[in-house]
């Protein structure tokens, strides 16, 4: 659970929940928006991870 990926997923989950509940009033919309946010966070994280992979850091 304390892997880089695992922590990113947990962080994304918390932030998605708070943002979706903040910005939408209807529970169904909150779930849809939260899922999209969560997917966006995790997907972008994986994409950026792969983009940085060749860099010699």
């Amino acid at each position, binding site marked *: 659970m*304390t892997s880089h990926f695992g*922590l990113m997923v*947990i*962080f994304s989950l*918390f*932030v998605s*929940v*708070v943002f979706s*509940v*903040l910005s939408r*009033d*209807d*529970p169904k919309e909150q779930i849809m928006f939260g899922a999209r946010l969560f997917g966006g966070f995790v997907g972008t994280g994986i994409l950026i991870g792969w983009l940085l992979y060749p860099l010699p850091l």
Partner: protein
Amino acid sequence: MRAAAADRTQTPSTIYLMCAAAWFLPGAGHLWLGRRQKGLVFLVSLTLMFAFGLWLEGRLFPFEISQPLVALAAIADVGIGLPYFVAKAIGVGAGRVVAITYEYGNTFVIAAGLLNMLVVLDVFDIAKGRK
């Protein structure tokens, strides 16, 4: 979803009191305004996020004006309200720099505080009748 308290025009002093309550206890402002679902979600998720950050050995930063970034992190930490003071009182949040999860812990703790500040702004907007 809109509750009676949120629809009523609030006096300025009540609005600031609501914001103070929202800061002090995550979700309290929304609960006060009758938005129970939102209030409970904020109470549980933000408190959990903050506790999770401490469990990951994140640090509660001190207010050091000589180090502006540390001072800003401290302000973000305090943004969570009561959980911050509870953590300070029971002596957690010292942070262990050599822990692998130290930076992750800091991120969780700081983000929880900043998100609670957003929640306070949302309470302000609702109480003002803008939302």
